[in-house]
């Protein structure tokens, strides 16, 4: 790594606030339909629950399959076509199945200025795939994303929706080793 970049990354480590431990995942004991209806009840008008409902369905199925859209449509009263048109507008909905772990690398300007490209290339090399694709064994999806709101602590990488900052190329291998060691 360029020494100037290394200096910036060291500064970022000092200024980044301590992140709290993640909350345990939500109880999924209730059926999806009931969880969607609970979301609907939070809003003065049910249509506001569509975006939360799509998220719930994606969490249930891993991606928004035809069946997932049917479920959302059933519970919210909208048509599947409308649900799909809304989902396609937003970047976080998966319209195709993804790998067990989703790795996103921010390549917007602040991260790019401190070497996000090198981090991305390192992921590509280690996983043997291009950004935007999934490994043949279905374990990893690698994506580039736009600004994640961690610009001063970049390069920002998120793994399964948790941020890792700053994430230089030297952190790629240890992270993948750790994820590979996990069951699933």
């Amino acid at each position, binding site marked *: 790594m*360029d*020494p*100037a*970049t290394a*200096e*910036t990354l060291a*500064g*970022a480590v*000092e*200024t*980044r*606030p*301590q*992140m*709290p431990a*993640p*909350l345990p995942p939500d109880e999924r004991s209730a059926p999806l339909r009931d969880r969607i209806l609970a979301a609907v009840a939070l*809003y*003065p*008008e049910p*249509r*506001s*629950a*569509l*975006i*939360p409902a*799509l*998220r719930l369905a994606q969490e249930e199925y891993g991606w928004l399959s035809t069946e997932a859209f049917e479920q959302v449509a059933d519970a919210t009263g909208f048509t599947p076509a409308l649900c799909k*048109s*809304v989902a396609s*507008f*937003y*970047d*976080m*909905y998966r319209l195709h199945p993804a790998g067990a772990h989703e790795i996103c690398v921010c*390549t*917007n*300007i*602040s991260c*790019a*200025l*401190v*070497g996000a*490209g090198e981090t*991305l*290339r*390192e992921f590509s090399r280690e996983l043997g795939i291009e950004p935007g694709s999934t490994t043949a064994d279905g374990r990893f999806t690698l994506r580039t*994303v*736009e*600004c994640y*709101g*961690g*610009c*001063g*602590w*970049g390069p920002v990488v*998120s793994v399964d*929706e*948790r*941020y890792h900052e700053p994430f230089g190329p030297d952190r790629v291998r240890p992270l993948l080793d750790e994820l590979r060691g996990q069951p699933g």
Partner: protein
Amino acid sequence: MSETGRILLDFDGDRRNIHAYEQAGGYASLRSALGMEAADVVATVDTSGLRGRGGAGFPTGRKASFLPKGRTPAYLCVNADESEPGTFKDREIMLRNPHALIEGILIMSYAMSATSAFIYIRGEYRTEFEVLKRALEEAHSRGYVGRNVLGSGYDATIVLHRGAGAYICGEETALLTSLEGERGQPRSKPPFPAIAGLYAAPTLVNNVETLASVPFIVKMGGEAYAAVGTERSKGTRVFSLSGNVKRPGNYELPLTATLRDLIEGHGGGMPEGRTMKAIIPGGSSTPLLMPDQLDTGLDYESIAAAGSMAGSGAVVVIDDRTCMVQLALRVAEFYRHESCGKCTPCREGTKWGTDVVRRIEDGSARQGEVDLLLNVCDRILGKNLCPLGDAFAMPIASYVTHFREEFQRHIDEGGCPFVEQSPIASLYHDVSGVPA
């Protein structure tokens, strides 16, 4: 205000725990506000001179006073969509001082007699969502949120709503459309949200930092807050500093501070062996400032006078290695990706413009395409429903104006002359010099 000059984040570590926040005097402002007439709370905010910290810098008290009196329902929407490239301050505020945001929401909700408040937080902020969720539960259990807040008779409902990844949803009318369960496309104004916002009801949209400042204003009094800052830019602002500096991070500074105070004083200046090439002063949608403008004040007026915009308070420092065409390409690609497609000049222009920058960068552009690029920017500028089209055209045009010879060199030499040195090059080229 203490001698640090900070107001909103005047402590080390965090005050996520409600007891820590209460011990530092938290929720006392809510108590005082509930004992005041709603109109007097708005007047206090107005006196403070607080201006929106989301990007447009509109006076907060004035905006609240536009709401028609006594019309129900009415809503407060909190803009926690933070996605202007370079900006990461709302995230730090939510992580370190979430109760200040909640208290600000409660005070503002009371002041405008809101039926309920919605926090629209960008979907990627999962940990921050969890922090707010927990903080709201705590606030609920202490009687600050819910029915009959602290025995005042005022009922406060706050709904946490997660977005799903779309920069445009930070624009206030797009945020409302998205909150109504649709594709997040902006609406034309008027009618302004104050008259017809969420579900066509009177609605106030405010940024996280704006609202989190409100408890401090109530506590200090409007005049004391207005004593900080310049004639027209009051109080402190949390600046997001990123790019090629020694100590990037968020720094809360009074609005009398300069770019030099931020970059050299707090950010430690350039990393060893580097010099400054340019500065983005207010997020990626703002035109460049040059190193000889370092003494520019960080207040809204000074940055405007210097030829740019204070925007979201995100300062990005660019060092001498950087290829400005590659930087322009990244900015162009971003706005092109985020254009919602509603207006022709924005939808078509961001695509055309991006294609031209890409051709210049990869060396396939013909002579004259630098002017073509300026022409495309000119045809986008000021011709759209929302400011996103301008957010493409203004910075791109400024990159060309300040670094025209660099753009031209790419055309003349048939490629990027800086591949071996530019930190952005590895996104576009197989950089041989980079050690594996």
